[in-house]
């Protein structure tokens, strides 16, 4: 099995990002519960995140972890449940990773810079 090392590393990467996600989701849910106490508004979200480097760093880590973790899992499901070739599911994994990275960073950079100059 010539792909043994690569597959093992992909699996380990999914495990490692799962650990990161466990922490990130905990913080994220905690923040949601805290934030909705006085109702949820766009202005409030922007006021919290805009210009805040700590939140930018936190969500950057979150996005990277999701972008690595989820596509690996989707690839496994596609390998098990469809007739797509390994190469195809590999490409789908890479494409999903890229889409999540672009969408995620677009959102968080948008929030970080929103309100700047307002």
């Amino acid at each position: 099995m010539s792909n043994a090392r690569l597959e093992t590393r992909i699996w380990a990467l999914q495990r490692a990002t799962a650990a990161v996600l466990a922490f990130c989701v905990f913080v994220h849910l905690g923040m949601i519960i805290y934030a909705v106490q006085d109702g949820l508004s766009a202005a409030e979200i922007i006021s919290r995140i805009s210009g805040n480097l700590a939140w930018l760093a936190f969500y950057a880590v979150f996005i990277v972890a999701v972008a690595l973790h989820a596509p690996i899992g989707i690839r496994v499901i596609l390998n098990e449940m469809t007739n797509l070739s390994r190469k195809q599911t590999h490409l789908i994994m890479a494409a999903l990773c890229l889409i999540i990275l672009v969408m995620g960073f677009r959102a968080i950079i948008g929030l970080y810079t929103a309100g700047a100059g307002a």
Partner: protein
Amino acid sequence: MTNTIKVSVWRGAEEGEFAQYEVPRQPSQTVLDVITYIQRHIDPTLSYRFACRVGVCGSCAMTVNGKPRWTCRTHVDKVALDGTLQVAPLRNLEVVKDLACDMTTFFDKMNRAEGKFHPTKSRDDDFDFVLPDDAKRKQASAGIECIGCGVCYAACDIVEWNKDYLGPAALNRAWTLVNDVRDGGNDERLAAVSGDAGCHACHSQQGCVEHCPKHISPTRAIAGLKRATVKAAIKGMLGGDD
């Protein structure tokens, strides 16, 4: 207890159908007794496999009322709660005829997982001292009672989804050897059990653990292999060309 039991038995190979039989009830009757009665008294063309009849050989494993079991160790009154039995061949294996499966793939996968001993010493060397409470010995002991009946293999959904997947028994066997200090084949073995047909394909659903008649936990063995292979991959082993 009624005097007879209604039994539907798979007849044919991959294509086939369930045939209905009525078999007299006996005290302490096993499912294997029922199948044997059908073959001896109703239809001698019924094919099935058994040898020891006492839970030692593992050759009489079949699907009884939807679950993989040793038929010799399954009492009718424990499983035929509504007075009916359905007996089919083991899942995930090619059916030869009726209740007999071709176990070739199952045993080939034991070899593919390097489930064989790689000796490191000659007769001139001294014995290895393996203490019973040694951590590795305990890991090996936990899985070493497997008799290769194929019940875990039939219970595993991953085997059904991924025909190349080595399966619980082969991986459990590999893990017992990984923990054998006398064995020298771990580089090849860890490479053989890695990847999407190996231990990393396991979702830890534990169907194997649930159904193993020897109460072995292949899931625990597979988790051990996952740890060992990740360590090996970090060290640059596993012989991959990535």
